[in-house]
């Protein structure tokens, strides 16, 4: 067979597979999740349902013969693409117009009386037909030259766009809509405005001596303070590491990943243990200085402490990058021109640092706004947006409309900060080094500045050590909360007791359930996240298709959406047909995949920038389609990025709380949700024990991932033609 015939037969086979899937989907598989019992048809497929009076499903069923006919007319033709697009549109329209309680328009009930019964969420048939139609659309597009005619890439683009649409943008739209829904289910501007301008959101009473400020004000005050302190500390740390003869540079770098693998709440708990009313430090204060113990730690100051601890490593890493990128020759030039070290620092170094500072500040600000774990443990009466949203959805006064409005405010604040950050990062180019930094030695810090930096860093480091000591110790002593340090494994037992007996392994511990779910969900989510992230990066870096820039922007944007907002938006979107998946384990996996995918994508983009694309092109000219090229050439070369993405997505899935807290169910509980329950019940020791175990499990998993991914095999010589030498 000539390559041409081979290609045609392969294409035909793929087309046939999609058509078969579509046939299965509309003829055999159950279209809905479940049906009202009184109307259960013999065949629950679209065909069966349509025949029994649900006539709005006919267009979906008829798409099948139409597509078969059109494919005989030429799958590369306009007709085929048109039919496939129309069929997909019909699928969407029927899903959104006929809801759980009947159709959105009365005339539909007149046309199809059965529509009044409504329909539940899509089932296997519904989803499969959506997938098949998207596959056919991608197929037709590729035959018309989309993605340089590569069918795999075309499918990848179409499916990723569809997934992002469904799991990132659609929920946000639903959420925005929910903000306008009044108490009687009507959509109107009134309820939204009432919620938006509610005094408990914007009140400024705390400034005028009154009692409490609104949540937005609280969030902003917290965010600005946290960002300022984190940036200052991050800068001090970065300057000490980069500009003094500090010896533990690598250690500090390694330690800065600690907060990433620290489960939420545990820092908060440790702070309570140290500074709470019966806390250790509080006790010392009372004993030595006779300070009356108070509950000062609950509120702004406590949250601030926890956030500083959690986000300073992030600002540190950003600023370390900036400081190291400053070309020493600039500073040397200034010194040779007669400026002293202090003057050089403020006239040369400082201006070069400013963009990095802005970026770090905004990053910490975004993180602080999005933070949920610390405010909920340490907030006391200090409510911020994320906790208020949580209580509006989960608490006793369920009010989705209000939660949605607050979430939209939070989203707006975050996006503005994100946008500003992008602008600053865009401008920072003049800071970066040109090639390898020429000989020059970085100037050391002026003496006074060094003092200031150390003065800031030492308490911070002591504080960090204290907190992590409590975390490490707390799980294995009798009651860390009352400072009863008798060693014990009791907490470990409560959580993870097990027994191996005649009937096999028996798990008694109360935490096993959530631990298993967490591990399973993370283990499924991590490779999927990595795959989609790297693949998206590949499409953005290497493929040439209409709308590529919008595509890249959309994926990056999804990273800026705070977890709490994602959580509520999923509640708003996936609790109702057509996509009704709340309470499943799938929604947990999906939530992680689309929240963390941008990280995989960034790692991928960085890797692709270093790899000559002609290797992939060579693979293509040798007959490998997109899939084979990706598997055999691309992935082996971007292993480090794959590793980063896997580890990051795994760890985040294990420790994330803000989004999943809305999505967990009794059947599928996650470790973090379980820990939150223990914290709320005051069982600090158990919470700490569980967190410690989680951290150990994560470290083991990281090592396992490292072993599985393995190293790149690139040969003895460091540089070779195919790949540019990696940037230092």
């Amino acid at each position, binding site marked *: 067979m000539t390559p041409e015939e081979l290609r045609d037969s392969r294409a035909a086979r793929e087309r046939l597979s999609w058509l078969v899937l579509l046939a299965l989907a509309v003829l055999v598989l159950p279209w809905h999740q479940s049906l009202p019992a009184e109307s259960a048809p013999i065949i629950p497929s679209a065909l069966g349902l349509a025949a029994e009076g649900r006539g709005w499903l006919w267009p979906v069923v008829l798409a099948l013969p139409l597509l078969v006919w059109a494919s005989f007319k030429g799958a590369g033709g306009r007709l085929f693409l048109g039919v496939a697009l129309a069929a997909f549109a019909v699928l969407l329209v029927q899903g959104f117009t006929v809801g759980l309680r009947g159709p959105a328009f009365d005339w539909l009930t007149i046309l199809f009386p059965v529509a009044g019964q409504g329909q539940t969420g899509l089932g296997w048939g519904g989803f499969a037909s959506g997938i098949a139609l998207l596959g056919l659309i991608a197929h037709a597009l590729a035959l018309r*030259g989309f993605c340089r*005619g590569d069918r795999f890439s075309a499918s990848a683009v179409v499916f990723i766009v569809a997934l992002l649409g469904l799991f990132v943008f659609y929920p946000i739209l639903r959420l925005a809509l929910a903000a306008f829904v009044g108490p009687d289910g009507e959509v109107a501007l009134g309820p939204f405005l009432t919620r938006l301008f509610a005094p408990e959101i914007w009140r400024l009473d705390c400034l005028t001596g009154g009692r409490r400020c609104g949540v937005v004000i609280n969030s902003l005050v917290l965010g600005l303070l946290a960002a300022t302190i984190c940036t200052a500390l991050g800068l001090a740390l970065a300057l000490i590491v980069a500009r003094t003869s500090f010896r533990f540079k690598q250690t500090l770098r390694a330690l800065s990943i600690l907060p990433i693998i620290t489960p939420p709440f545990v820092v908060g708990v440790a702070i309570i243990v140290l500074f709470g009313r019966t806390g250790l430090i509080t006790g010392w204060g009372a004993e030595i200085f006779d300070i009356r113990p108070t509950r000062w730690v609950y509120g702004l100051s406590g949250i601030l402490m926890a956030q500083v601890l959690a986000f300073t490593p992030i600002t540190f890493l950003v600023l370390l990058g900036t400081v190291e990128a400053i070309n020493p020759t600039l500073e040397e030039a200034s010194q040779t021109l007669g400026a002293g070290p202090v003057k050089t620092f403020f006239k040369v170094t400082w201006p070069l640092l400013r963009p990095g500072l802005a970026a770090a500040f905004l990053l910490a600000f975004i993180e602080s706004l999005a933070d949920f774990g610390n405010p909920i443990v340490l907030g006391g009466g200090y409510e911020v947006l994320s906790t208020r949203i949580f209580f509006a959805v989960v608490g006793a006064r369920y009010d989705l409309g209000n939660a949605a409005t607050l979430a939209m405010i939070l989203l707006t604040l975050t996006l503005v900060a994100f946008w500003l950050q992008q602008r600053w990062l865009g401008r920072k180019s003049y800071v970066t080094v040109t090639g390898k930094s020429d000989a020059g030695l970085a100037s050391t810090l002026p003496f006074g500045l060094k003092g200031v930096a150390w003065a800031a860093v030492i308490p911070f480091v002591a504080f960090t050590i204290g907190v992590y000591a409590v975390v490490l110790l707390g799980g294995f002593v009798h009651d860390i909360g009352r400072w009863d340090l008798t060693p014990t494994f009791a907490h470990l037992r409560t959580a993870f007791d097990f027994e191996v007996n005649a009937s096999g392994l028996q798990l008694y511990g109360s935490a096993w359930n959530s631990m298993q779910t967490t591990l399973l969900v993370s283990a499924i989510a991590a490779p999927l996240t990595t795959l989609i992230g790297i693949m998206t990066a590949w499409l953005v870096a290497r493929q040439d298709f209409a709308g590529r820039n919008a595509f890249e922007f959309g994926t990056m944007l999804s990273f800026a959406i705070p977890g709490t907002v994602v959580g509520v938006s999923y509640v708003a979107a996936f609790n109702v047909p057509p996509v009704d998946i709340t309470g499943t384990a799938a929604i947990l996996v999906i939530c992680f995949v689309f929240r963390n995918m941008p990280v995989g994508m960034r790692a991928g983009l960085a890797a692709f920038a270093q790899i000559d694309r002609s290797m992939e092109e060579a*693979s293509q000219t040798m*007959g*490998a389609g*997109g899939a084979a090229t990706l598997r*055999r050439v691309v992935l082996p070369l971007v292993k480090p990025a794959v590793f980063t993405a896997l580890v990051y997505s795994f760890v985040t899935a294990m420790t994330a709380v803000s989004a999943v807290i809305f999505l967990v169910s009794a059947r599928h509980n996650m470790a973090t949700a379980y820990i939150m329950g223990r914290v709320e019940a005051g069982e600090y020791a158990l919470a700490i024990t569980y967190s410690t175990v989680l951290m150990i499990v994560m470290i083991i998993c990281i090592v396992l991932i490292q072993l599985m991914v393995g190293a790149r*095999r690139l040969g003895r010589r460091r540089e070779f*033609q195919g790949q540019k030498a990696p940037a230092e």
Partner: protein
Amino acid sequence: MTEEIAIEFANVTKRYGSAVAVDAITLSIAKGELVTFLGPSGCGKTTSLRLIAGLELPTSGVVQIAGRDVSQRAASERNVGMVFQSYALFPHMNVLENVSYGPMIRGVAKAKARAHAYEILEQIGLKGLDMRLPSELSGGQQQRVAVARAIVQQPDVLLFDEPLSNVDAKLRRKVRGEIRELQKRFGLTAVYVTHDQEEALAVSDRIVVMQAGRIAQIGTPRDLYERPASSFVADFIGDANLISGQVTAGRFRAADLDVPLAGPDGAAQISLRPERIILSAGEGAPSGRVRSCTYLGSHWEYEIETGFAELLASRPMSEAPIAPGTAVTLTIPETAPIRVTDI
């Protein structure tokens, strides 16, 4: 034409946004021919080559390979071999794996693919290197692996994008000879991109001179050198003196230059190769004055001031040099001036 057509471009245009990289090119390449795309940087050579490979799809127009319309067909579904400027060897595969990659991807059994790869490696003089990684080969060896990898699948067309730009000048002559020899031996149709006109003259059956996305002229190396169609081609291939003047009654005149020239009367431009200008000391017509005389090892190069242009002339070493400042008479053989269009 009776010979089979391997590649055909009909009105092929490639746009990137609003920029036109290839502008309505029509071209056909016969089977077994080696055609070179030659032109200044950014003229669209690489883009044209990638259009053949399928690494770009045309914005409009039709590309045919072996009689089939492949305009919207992906690279992986055409049967082409390509040698990249950077060689693009897979750094994580050894030589054998690199060469047997294509057959394996196309479904040939592993053992058979390897056997075939061995055979090609042997023919191309890389025996014994098959277990090395590309990073353990010299530049020249890498280049040969890249060629082996491209021809192992007997492609309909073999594409080269500046394959010699990473080879040092000495080796270049040898390697280009090898490529030409290989192409003839396997009876391959080849398209070769270069911006080095000497390389193009040496290896090609025909040369396509490109200019700003369009074809300036197609012809054999000799055609292009001896009968350039435009001042651009004349100037780009070899050195040319371009002289503007008037044609009346079959004679071209510019100042004291008066040579026979066919074609219609009116304003015209001619190209005069430097080596076709004969110099003799003394006054005469057309006359000139030697501005400089440079020793170039293989010949003398003169700059001559005349009433109609600043001329470049080159004379063999066997002639005695003429000192700068000397008045000279130019003798121009009747066949030397070539009428060219202005662009």
